[in-house]
């Protein structure tokens, strides 16, 4: 059953256009011109209960605008949204009891309070009694390993610790859906990995549906089974990660280290990416040629080391963005 259902959703913003200089400023007072920006343009998709979905796209693609409409922050210009059967624009409070949000770029916690006091405050916002709040704090404190800093003011925590607390604060009322808008922004690789593990755990243990936006390919690759790519306000791809890799991983990278420099020239079947210091790097289009045919062109006695790899997912997604 679809837990999120979006049909023909659009959001327009009216932006004032001003000509250059002081003349332009004066003119814009008496005769203002406006541009209509279609931040989200007629998109439709659905999300199943328990899914972890990546909603990605370049800057200004419409990701945050969409997530803000799904959470009731922005009103859509057109189209319909149903989140657990609730219309976010009309039943904002009812929706809020069922969803959690973490905006990586925006602080929800009170900086001068400890995580413990923050959780008590957020628990009270969701009408939980003291016993329920204490129980939840104890449970999440173990899952998210908050023990060491639960009584330290938030302003003194590291970014990674703070994001963990942000996630706990948004989970205190056991939401069915968690919206994560760039939750790993600015974090180091170890902390990123921790956060990803926690998100996975949450999905597994509480069957929480996760709706994730991120620019970090690691988040998408390691967490999500499905990806929606949005660009210029339109959905340009909605597929499983497996199909995405299968359809787009038709290029291989061969890196060969040889005793002497190899004389190979590019062709329609392959491209030489690098050929310096006895190291050769070739990109092969497997729809036109196969890996072995290319390797056979190199004298096997000359080969010291060889490595065959897929094109990084990041490159694939960049290619899709460019389309």
């Amino acid at each position, binding site marked *: 059953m679809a837990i999120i259902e979006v049909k023909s959703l659009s959001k327009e*913003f009216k932006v004032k256009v001003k000509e250059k200089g002081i003349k332009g400023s004066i003119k814009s007072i008496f005769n203002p011109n406006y541009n209509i920006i279609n931040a989200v343009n007629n998109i439709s998709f659905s999300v199943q209960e328990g899914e972890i979905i990546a909603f990605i796209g370049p800057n200004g693609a419409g990701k*945050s605008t969409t997530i*803000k409409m799904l*959470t*009731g*922050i*922005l*009103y859509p210009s057109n189209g319909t949204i149903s989140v657990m059967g609730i219309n976010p624009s009309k039943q*904002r*409070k*009812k929706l*809020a*009891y069922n*969803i959690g*949000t973490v*905006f990586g*770029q*925006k*602080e*929800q*916690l*009170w*900086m*001068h*309070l400890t995580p413990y*006091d923050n959780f008590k*405050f957020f628990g*009270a*916002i*969701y*009408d939980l009694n003291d016993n329920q709040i204490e129980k939840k704090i104890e449970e999440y404190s173990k899952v998210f390993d908050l023990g060491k800093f639960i009584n330290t003011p938030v*302003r003194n925590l590291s970014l990674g610790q703070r994001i963990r607390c942000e996630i706990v604060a948004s989970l205190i009322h056991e939401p069915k859906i968690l919206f994560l808008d760039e939750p790993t922004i600015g974090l180091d690789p170890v902390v990123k990995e921790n956060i990803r593990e926690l998100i996975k755990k949450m999905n597994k243990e509480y069957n929480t549906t996760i709706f994730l936006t991120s620019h970090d390919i690691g988040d998408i690759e390691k967490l999500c089974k499905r990806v929606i790519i949005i660009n210029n306000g339109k959905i340009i791809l909605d597929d499983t990660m497996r199909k995405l890799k299968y359809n787009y991983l038709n290029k291989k990278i061969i890196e060969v280290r040889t005793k002497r420099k190899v004389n190979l020239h590019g062709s329609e079947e392959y491209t030489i990416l690098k050929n310096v210091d006895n190291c050769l790097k070739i990109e092969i289009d497997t729809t036109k040629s196969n890996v072995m045919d290319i390797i056979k062109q190199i004298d096997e006695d000359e080969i010291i080391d060889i490595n065959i790899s897929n094109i990084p997912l990041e490159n694939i997604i960049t290619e899709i963005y460019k389309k």
Partner: protein
Amino acid sequence: MLMEVKKQIKISLLSIKYSIMMQMLNKVTFITNVIFMILNNASFIIQWMVLFNIKDNVGGLSFKQVILLWGIASGTYGIAHLFFEEAFNLSKLIVNGKLDSFIVQPKNVLISVVTSRSKISALGDLIYGYIVLLFYGITIKRFIIFTFVNICGGIIIAEISIIYNSFCFWFVKADILGDTINNTMLNFATYPETIFKKSVKLILYTIIPVGFSTYMPFKLMLKFGIREFFLLIISVLIISLLTFGIFNKGLKKYSSSNLMVSRI
């Protein structure tokens, strides 16, 4: 409905408690802020003392009565800024997209926003109001009326600020208008209503509605009457309805933003 109101009040009080706690983190700053605000307000007595040396009354009011007016202006301002400080910063919150975290919570957005921050020097204003009441002559009845009118006036001041700041939902630079109205209201609040002509009075009960926030509470304090009492309550209710109506209408126009911000 009643239960929901009870829960909202509980959260708002908790929020105010936390924001006051934040302001009290630094003891020295806290105490000096409060004391200097009391001294700042007290310094204005001197100009009135000079004036009353020349004249017996100003607009029919004695020195004590003018100082009581000051006490009410200070007390109402204190209530407004101590409990609803963000009402005065609302335009910046709207323009910078800082309402997001309040919208995703299952509580009233406007109440949650305005009670999320306190201005601790406003405690000095409030204390000054009660010092003035002591000087005017305190009785239990006067204490109760003074507290009541301060709460009503404080709510009205915050609401007027919310109304003007809410224009930011439609016009980006409306914060200037909000700030101007707040300052103008404060200026007019410290002068007796009786010195103004009818045309000015009309402005003081409409565009710059200091009449509702200071003059009506002041009249009630001078002479308590049931009619005036209910008029003040009705004024608070009507202005409240108008405030929530305008804010909620504007909220539909809210466009958020992706600025990096912290709640500090």
